């Protein structure tokens, strides 16, 4: 039956984490990487077994009731359906390959046990997030994933800016989590339950479509999703998150965590259908982040930051798809994106390690002959990213999204999507040419040491490369049944026109980039040096200045108020009585001057005052 594999699939990473965490230094690097990779591998097998045994529909299993107070009864329960299985397979499958590659990547690093402990904990939390049958358990996974990303981004903790990047990532995602929490409170108050299935069932009955509560609930859930999936308002943490080791970026910031937002919206699609204008907002946010990230990627020098912005733009596509109601297409793109983005990140990792942690494109170059595997990975991954027609997986998924947008008559979004496709083409070509062709910029790049170990270096790259081609697109089982029918399913006209358009955009992008970077390199350089061009380039380099905006709007006032309040003002007025007492004491003590006669004077003065009061008192003091 379904229970054992599903439970096993998330117990293995948990066991891995516990063993690694409590080993306290007794495990050497070899042993810890074996445990780390092994546990995720076993989880992958368990998932495979679960996928085989899954007969469709949802099967739930409740381990125990978490809290039971009145009608607030969240349980630790798992619900396995097609969506969950797809996500599980992505997490464990791609996760396993990344863990394998990490064994190579992290050789020679200190604290590998800690690394794998965090990675396994991450996989465990992600599985919980995906499998949770009620929103509170989902929230548990949601926060757990945030904590692990904090731990892993801040892996090289000696560097203060790495730690600061981890801190920033956690805080920004936490802001998103708070929106999600508020959404949960609202949902519980209105619908009286947190169980996802019942929420989706009761929502349409209690809330009219487009009613205020539906909008608010959807908006809050969207806020949570934006934080985790690094979309426009809460996206500033993703580029800085590249401070972590590259496998981390591959696993967390490409394949799994950033897609959690997409999964959440897909899971609660019933809620969003009740709030059409929030759906539109999702699409718009997707489009905006898509374009913003694409432009920013054009002006980056660090290869990992290019990939980071490219991830952000691809997730923008997924939100774009969700916005138009094409939930299935979004998940399809999620899967293919996981494959080729992981491939790109791991290849970048291979390049970085080979060139002794050199990440700047300016310093790299002329590597394509020396690092053939990495170069191959980049080319195949790049092709899938650009959605090279017919041969790459990206084409099928992105084309599906654009088609759905067209079918849903969202022409504005469609145009943004196409423009995004062109830009993607440009920055991908720039990335590949900058890194592998031209003259090597530094002596690291002149004689790199290519990764030799077959099992931990070549295997993951090759497998991912294969999955990034059209084979990856075939594997996707299609979750048609789970989601309400997308706009594109019923309409047929214009499908071919769109395919032509999409192919044209991709090819145009490639051609333009090739022409620009190969023939017109000098013309390009002097444009970006002077006047408007330089200004634009700088603007894109700093991702449209969002970081500076947030820093000035939020961070600086916060630091100012912390500095101002370091001295506890409210406490000051609690010292008032003490000061008054001290003053009175000083005054009274002076009256004790030791001379008998002055004591007598005070005594007489007291008596006369009382007698005067008596005389003046109304009615003679009766």
């Amino acid at each position: 039956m379904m229970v054992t594999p599903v439970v096993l699939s998330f117990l293995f990473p948990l066991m891995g984490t516990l063993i690694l965490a409590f080993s306290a230094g007794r495990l050497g690097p070899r042993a810890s990487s074996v445990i780390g990779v092994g546990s995720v591998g076993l989880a992958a097998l368990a998932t495979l077994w679960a996928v085989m045994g899954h007969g469709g529909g949802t099967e739930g299993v409740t381990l125990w009731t978490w809290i039971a107070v009145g009608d607030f009864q969240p349980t630790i329960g798992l619900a396995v359906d097609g969506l969950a299985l797809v996500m599980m397979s992505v997490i464990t499958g791609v996760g396993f390959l990344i863990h394998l590659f990490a064994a190579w990547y992290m050789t020679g690093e200190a604290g590998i046990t800690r690394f794998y402990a965090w990675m396994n904990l991450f996989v465990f939390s992600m599985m919980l997030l995906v499998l949770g049958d009620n929103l509170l358990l989902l929230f548990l996974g949601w926060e757990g994933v945030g904590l692990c990303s904090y731990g892993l981004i801040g892996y090289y903790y000696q560097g203060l800016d790495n730690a600061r990047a981890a801190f920033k990532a956690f805080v920004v995602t936490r802001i998103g989590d708070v929106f999600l929490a508020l959404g949960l409170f609202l949902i519980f108050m209105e619908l009286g339950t947190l169980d996802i299935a019942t929420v989706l069932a009761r929502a349409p009955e209690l809330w009219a479509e487009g009613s205020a509560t539906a909008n608010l609930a959807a908006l809050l859930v969207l806020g949570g999703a934006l934080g985790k999936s690094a979309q426009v308002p809460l996206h500033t943490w993703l580029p800085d998150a590249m401070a972590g080791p590259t496998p981390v970026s591959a696993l967390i910031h490409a394949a799994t965590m950033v897609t959690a937002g997409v999964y959440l919206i897909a899971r609660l699609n019933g809620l969003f259908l009740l709030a059409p204008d929030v759906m539109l907002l999702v699409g718009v946010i997707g489009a905006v982040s898509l374009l913003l990230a694409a432009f920013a990627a054009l002006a980056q020098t660090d290869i990992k930051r290019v990939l980071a912005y490219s991830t952000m733009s691809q997730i923008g596509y997924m939100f774009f798809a969700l916005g138009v109601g094409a939930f299935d297409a979004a998940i399809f793109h999620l899967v293919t994106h996981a494959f080729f983005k992981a491939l790109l990140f791991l290849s970048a990792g291979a390049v970085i390690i080979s060139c002794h942690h050199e990440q700047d494109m300016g310093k790299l170059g002329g590597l394509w002959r020396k690092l053939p595997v990495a170069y191959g990975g980049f080319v195949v991954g790049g092709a899938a990213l650009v959605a090279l027609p017919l041969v790459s997986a990206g084409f099928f998924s992105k084309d599906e999204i654009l088609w759905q947008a067209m079918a849903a008559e969202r022409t504005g979004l469609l145009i943004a999507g196409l423009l995004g496709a062109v830009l993607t083409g440009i920055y991908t070509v720039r990335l590949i040419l900058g890194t592998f062709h031209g003259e090597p910029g530094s002596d690291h790049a002149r004689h790199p040491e290519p990764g030799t170990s077959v099992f931990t270096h070549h295997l993951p790259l090759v497998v991912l490369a294969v999955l990034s081609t059209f084979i990856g697109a075939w594997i996707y089982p299609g979750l048609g049944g789970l989601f309400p029918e997308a706009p594109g399913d019923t309409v047929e006209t214009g499908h071919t026109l769109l395919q032509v358009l999409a192919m044209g955009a991709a090819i145009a992008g490639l051609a333009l980039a090739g022409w620009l970077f190969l023939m017109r390199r000098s013309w390009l350089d002097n444009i970006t040096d002077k006047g408007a061009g330089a200004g634009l380039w700088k603007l894109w380099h700093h991702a449209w200045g969002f970081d500076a905006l947030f820093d000035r709007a939020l961070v600086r006032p916060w630091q100012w108020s912390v500095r101002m309040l370091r001295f506890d003002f409210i406490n000051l007025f609690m010292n008032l009585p003490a000061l008054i007492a001290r003053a009175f004491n000083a005054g009274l003590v002076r009256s004790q001057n030791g001379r008998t006669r002055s004591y007598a004077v005070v005594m007489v003065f007291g008596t006369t005052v009382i007698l005067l009061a008596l005389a003046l008192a109304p009615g003679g003091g009766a």
Partner: protein
Amino acid sequence: MLTLESLISLLPLIIVATTAVVVMLSVAWQRHHAGTAMVSAGGLVLALLSVPLAAGALISPPLMTVDGLAIMGSVLVLLCALVTVALSHHYLTGYIGPREEFYLLLLCAVTGALGLVASDHLATLFISLELLSMPLYGMLAYSFRAERSLEAGIKYLVLSAAATAFLLFGMALIYARTGRMDLAGLAAGLAASPDAWTLAGAVLMVVGLGFKLSIVPFHLWTPDVYQGGPAPATIFLATVSKLAVFLVLLRLVMVAPIFDSEWLRTLFTLLALITMLGGNLLALFQPNLKRLLGYSSIAHFGYLLVAIVVGGQLAVEATGVYLITYLVTTLAAFGVVTQVSSPFGGEDAAGLHHYRGLFWRRPWLAAVMTVSFLSLAGIPLTAGFIGKFYVIALGVADARWWLVGGVVAGSAIGLFYYLRVMVTLYMPEPGMRRRDATEDWGSRVGGLTLIVVAVLILVIGVYPAPVIDWVVGFSGVL
């Protein structure tokens, strides 16, 4: 008319007086310090045993009433005197010069106190008050070779005489206006129309008594006299003298209607408030322990004034209980000061630095001092808390929110210096010279009584029911 029956009711006073005479004769015949101390202690114990007899007698002598209040007062006076004798014996062993006269003065003062507590007539009030005060001048100035004791004696004499003059003049005015000297007659005479002169007389009497109770405008002498006087004399002054005077003031307020006119009640409220706050505020940063205890006693009588303001049955009961807790606590606190400064070495160990780290040398003595200061501060499980509880209960029952607020504020301020003293006991000792109690302080009579008193504080604090019932028994009779 003085019948045999009324004489029996005066038995304790008579016994103490005869002890004084016996002591005088024994001093004339053969000076023996321990002997004199034993005789006076014996006399006091005898008087204590005779109190039930006196309580039994129905007719009280003319000019006096031996009622519940008087009996309770006598018992408390005798007990405090007994403790003072026990403590002063060890103290005086170091005194070069005549030691026996101290007990003589003490016994005379006790006679005065017993008379004062039972007085019902202005004359007896005056005579007993003076019989109580005169020996006190002598006791305070006993070690006149030390400047401070002489200065204390002089100050107390001059100011106390002035206060007596005020008291007398007040009495005279009231007498002139009503023609009656006994309190009952006074009450009847004044019921008619309290005019300006009688009220002025009442005010002057309050001033005279207020001086003895060190109520704020008339309190300035207290710290100097407490610091200057030899420790046993200060104990006597702080306990017996204040106890007796307060009971007289209470009797005046209860019996004579003149004293419960609305205007005078507000006067008392005002006096109570400034006394509570003044006493505590003065003591905040006081380095000298005896002066600090002087200020603390001012504050405590400020709290007690609440009973005068409220009046009535509960007030008498509250006064009784509060006085018991105050006496027990003051005896313990001053007892420790006496133990640390005995045998007499010219100057009492009054500076707080003498007591720094006392706990690590004399744990049990420091424990006694901690208990006494906890009780002064009114922390639960000590007698002081029961006293403060009663006062606040009194204030709340009569809805006197100003006074209750004053008590709360006063005790909050008071905490500061009580804690400051307590913590110095436990501080690690610095190396410098320190005064210290004798090694065998615990096994001497004074030490034993001190420990008994300290245990009494805890017992009253933990299980106050018997004490309360005893007091309720007496206050009912009034």
